[in-house]
């Protein structure tokens, strides 16, 4: 068992900077997910953590111990790879036994024929075999032990990869998109199994994915990564409801959050898309802001005017209990998406004019540079003056400290 501490990790490949000042503290036994789009450096960070790659700056500690310069096998971490990385020429049993053989048998004892004659070898080999069989049975692959990886399905290979990591009882489990090669049904099933595995083993998990659903359902905390930087580390519900940064808000949530440009008219009123919303902005009149409104923050309104947005229906997506209505608003080029309850929504047709109301407390405000403005934490509202557009704005993170 071990906590993990990453301190200002930098990594460059030649001229390209892949990781920039990544700091992250992971508690013992925590399930932390690194979430980010493809190419943002998630795998690189995981490889640095495992010791497979050296960082250019910064330190990595595992269980209070600085592990920089320690070889991967000395770090007490195990990793499940996206491609599973099984050894194609070895049987499943040998695949799973290899990490134990390398650790528990000496080089002499591992020799093909001679090794078996040395004292102790037989006992250790039997122990390894027992452990492998036990783990395989636990994962439901006990009957596949004599096969080669090429003879398994994707899901079975995935289990073998997990099994190979498990037999060693590592202090930290690293998983790099272990489910991305599986079909949708299997993915949901394996997701549950990984959650269960974490609860049973109680060790630290660092899980990499670009799938929000995985991140949201599995994690204690989610670390959102973009272009080599950590934008926010928080529990899943906070990442969704209380993002620090415009990019986080846009990355999380499907359909995507609606971003509308607005101008503060006076205290408590913001002009947006030809309408006025009663939102406490704590900014001076004339300040330009971006309003982030999740699709489910809308509700059907009877009439336009203050507090509601009006647009013409472009498209309707029926999702069972909900409708996703795409609205064209005056002066905005991309449609607004509102998620409305199907049973409360009368028949609407494309081309029709529709009014949607907004819950002011669900509107997220972002400054021009993408920093979140004016949000309440611990019930205490942080007040800030925003001058006119272009005024310098103290980043929210500094204020929050």
């Amino acid at each position, binding site marked *: 068992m071990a906590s993990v501490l990453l301190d200002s990790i930098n990594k460059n490949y030649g001229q390209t900077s892949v990781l920039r000042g990544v700091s992250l503290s992971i508690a013992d036994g925590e399930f932390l997910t690194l979430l980010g789009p493809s190419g943002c450096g998630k795998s690189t960070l995981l*490889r640095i953590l*495992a010791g*497979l790659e050296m960082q250019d700056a910064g330190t990595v500690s595992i269980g209070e111990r600085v592990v920089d310069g320690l*070889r*991967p*096998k000395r770090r007490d*971490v*195990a*990793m499940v*790879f*996206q*491609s*599973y*990385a*099984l*050894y*194609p*020429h070895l049987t499943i049993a040998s695949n799973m036994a*290899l*990490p134990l053989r*390398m*650790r528990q048998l000496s080089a002499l004892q591992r020799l093909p024929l001679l090794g078996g004659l040395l004292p102790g070898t037989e006992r250790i080999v039997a122990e390894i075999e027992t452990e492998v069989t036990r783990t395989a049975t636990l994962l439901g692959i006990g009957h596949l032990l004599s096969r080669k990886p*090429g003879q398994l399905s994707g899901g079975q290979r995935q289990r073998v990869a997990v099994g*190979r990591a498990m037999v060693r009882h590592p202090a930290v489990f690293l998983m790099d998109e272990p489910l991305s090669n599986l079909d949708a049904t299997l993915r949901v099933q394996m997701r549950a199994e990984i959650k269960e595995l974490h609860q049973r083993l109680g060790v630290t998990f660092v899980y990499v994915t670009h799938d929000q659903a995985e991140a949201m359902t599995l994690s204690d905390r989610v670390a959102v990564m973009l272009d080599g930087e950590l934008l926010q580390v928080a529990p899943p519900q906070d990442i969704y409801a209380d993002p620090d940064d415009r990019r986080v808000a846009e990355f999380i949530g499907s359909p995507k959050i609606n971003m509308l440009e607005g101008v503060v008219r006076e205290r408590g009123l913001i002009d947006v898309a030809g309408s006025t919303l009663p939102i406490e902005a704590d900014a001076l009149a004339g300040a330009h802001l971006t309003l982030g409104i999740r699709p489910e923050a809308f509700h059907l309104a009877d009439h336009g005017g203050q507090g509601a947005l009006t647009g013409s229906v472009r498209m309707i997506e029926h999702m069972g209990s909900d409708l996703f209505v795409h609205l064209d608003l005056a002066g905005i080029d991309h449609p607004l998406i509102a998620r409305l309850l199907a049973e409360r929504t009368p028949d609407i047709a494309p081309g029709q004019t529709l009014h949607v109301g907004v819950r002011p407390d669900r509107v997220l405000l972002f400054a021009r540079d993408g920093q979140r403005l004016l949000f309440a934490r611990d019930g205490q509202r942080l007040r800030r003056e925003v001058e006119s557009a272009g005024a310098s704005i103290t980043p929210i993170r500094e204020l929050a400290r």
Partner: protein
Amino acid sequence: MSFITSANFLWRPAAILRHAVLIVTGALILAPFVWMVSLSIRPPGEIFRASFTFWPAQFYGVENYTKALTQAPLPRSMGNGLIVCSLILALQILVCAPCAYALAKLRFPGRDLLFGMVLIGLLLPHQVLSLPLFILGYQLGILNTYAALVFPYVVSPFGIFLFRQFFKTIPDDVIHAARLDGLSELTIVWKIMMPMALPAILAFSIFSVVGHWNDLFWPLIAVQDRSLMPPPLGIMAFMNEEAGNDYGPLMAASTLVVLPLLVAFLAAQRWFVEGLTRGGIK
């Protein structure tokens, strides 16, 4: 593709031309071999006949082959060939695999330069180096021994190149997994990379064995002792001393020398083609 369309496909003009070219080149390459086999079963009188038939009027195979095997030290030179070729191959693999692994999968300064030097080594014909190698062998005092036949070939640029290309297709994740599992770099080479690169190793083995089994140039320089001569040199000595103009037994000896290679190649054909053409292991 269904059978019918593939049959049609064969009869398209382009396909006919392609096959014609292949058949002609194949025949050109094969003709001397056929002739060699044909000569090896002829009596002396029939060898210089103007008319050519594959099967001789009088079958003289038994006599020719007995003569080839008994009058010349052919078994001895074939034994030498076996020893020398296996030694060369074993040492080549021992040296090339770690080199290729380093060039394919490890990052260190100067790697590209080193690989460039391997490529240059690939371009140099071996004959160019024979004089320096001869002097080196003389200085080491190993001329006229098995070691003299083996040492110039231990480091094979071709082997390094071929293995490197194959190792490059093996995903990094497998190596990372092996490192996490506690394997040392050398263990990774022997326990993970080599088994995965088996087709490439087979292809290389065939190249290496064929090349050195048939090599005449270097053995001619390196050894004088008849008991050390590899097959082609043995045949040459046989031709000069015993056979004279007796081509029947000479061709029989040649056929016998080529035979093991032919059998080995046919047995390993599938992997050979795979090793040269295939990308990686999924």
